[in-house]
């Protein structure tokens, strides 16, 4: 069976559900009507654009175009990591560079491993395979990397006294920051561990839902989802380790000093509207 296609009227019906949000906002005076509307519009425009772009890339079946779109996705994910931090590095390119480099390595490694070693499409860069997997890998790694960097900078700031006491006693920067880094890595691993633990019970993964709706055999969809979960856990682990070590590197210097003044701690962009 194939899922019936959706037309504009169907989407209009779906969008009526947004009224629940608006009514909620009105009746409790949350003043969120504007934000809800903007967020919904962004979502429609972004997903519509992605649909169009993917259609174009799939039709062209060009390796160069696939690579270009992949790079845009990595850069956007790197930007998202940076803008979700409570404490940014004063040199913006440094922060953006850390997030983007991390996602580039983890995203490339995870996606290529899934595509080349496991799925094996022909040609190997088939955009229908590479781009959705890259998207999922980036989305998950991004969450982990954001959490790691946020926890690392926040904990380093709070534990400044203890870190400097260790440094003063002659410990190296990685020894002095070991507990801070371990805490950050543990928190960074939590989302992917949780989603593995509850996958299928509490929550049916989006990709699996989509495959089943479009007519794939549920067992096949489950196998794909299992493979994806492993790829996501590996890529996230790789990403958070790179981000964590890179973060310690940037918060300290060659003479094993803690350099918290490199952080620009006063901005709180996490409060920005969606």
């Amino acid at each position: 069976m194939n899922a019936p296609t959706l037309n504009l009227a169907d989407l209009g019906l779906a969008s009526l559900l947004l009224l629940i949000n608006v009514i909620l906002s009105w009746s409790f005076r949350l003043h969120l009507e504007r934000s809800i509307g903007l967020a919904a519009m962004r979502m429609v425009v972004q997903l519509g654009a992605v649909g169009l772009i993917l259609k174009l890339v799939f039709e062209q079946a060009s390796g160069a175009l696939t690579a270009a779109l992949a790079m845009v996705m990595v850069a956007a994910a790197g930007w998202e990591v940076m803008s979700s931090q409570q404490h940014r590095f004063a040199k913006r390119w440094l922060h953006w560079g850390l997030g983007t480099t991390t996602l580039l390595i983890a995203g490339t490694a995870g996606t290529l491993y899934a595509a080349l070693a496991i799925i094996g499409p022909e040609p190997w860069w088939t955009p229908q395979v590479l781009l959705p997997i890259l998207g999922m890998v980036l989305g998950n790694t991004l969450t982990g990397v954001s959490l790691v960097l946020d926890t690392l900078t926040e904990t380093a700031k709070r534990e400044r006294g203890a870190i400097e006491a260790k440094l003063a006693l002659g410990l190296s920067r990685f020894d002095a920051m070991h507990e801070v880094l371990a805490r950050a890595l543990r928190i960074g691993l939590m989302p992917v561990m949780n989603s593995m633990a509850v996958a299928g019970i509490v929550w049916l993964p989006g990709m699996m839902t989509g495959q089943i709706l479009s007519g794939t055999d549920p067992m096949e969809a489950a196998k794909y989802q299992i493979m994806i979960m492993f790829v996501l856990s590996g890529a996230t682990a790789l990403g958070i380790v790179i981000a964590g070590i890179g973060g310690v590197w940037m918060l300290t210097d060659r003479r094993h000093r803690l350099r918290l003044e490199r952080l620009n701690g006063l901005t709180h962009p996490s409060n920005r509207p969606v």
Partner: protein
Amino acid sequence: MLRIDRLTIPGLPALSFEVAAGECLCIEGPSGSGKTRILRAIADLDPAGGQVFLEGAERAELSATEWRRRVRYVAAEPAWWADNARQHVKSGIGGSRFERTSVSLGLAHGLLDLPLTQLSTGERLRLSVARALSDEPRVILFDEPTGALDAQATALTEELIRFQILTGRAVVLVSHDVAQVGRLAHHRLLLGAATTSTAPASADPAHRITGAVSALRAKLSGQGQ
């Protein structure tokens, strides 16, 4: 033993001075005059211009970790990361030295194993002094080591500092206590808004500890930069 050559810290004139083995230099000055920053810069915990030599070796010749093993900064507000004091020092020679030094500072044996949250500010301060001495650094930079202590604990801590000096270490001491400076200093460094100057120790000779008092080569350089 410890030679500071044109140490440059933002907002302070460049400083040059020398502390020989078995000597104590006291740094005095109002709050905010940069006493702590000088100690931190000597320990290489903050970036600073100029050169610092220990027994002829410039600090850049040593790794930062090795430098801080020999040149120890003891902060005014100690920080802890484990539950009790004992966990902060490796067991073995250092651990037993930590225990002995704590006892000599008037702290009971069992204190090392109590949760640090149960101890008083003064007890934690003395424990941090004992912790800093547990691996026998060559130079000790004390930042108000008796700031939160009563008279008896202060006397014991001063006795320990005197012992460190007598056994050939170089000590740099930041203190607000004029009488204490008089009791311990061979040399004094006075910090002020625009009047950083050095002077020989001026205390009653009876309070001065014995030991070679060499001429203070502290001099002011680069003033008005």
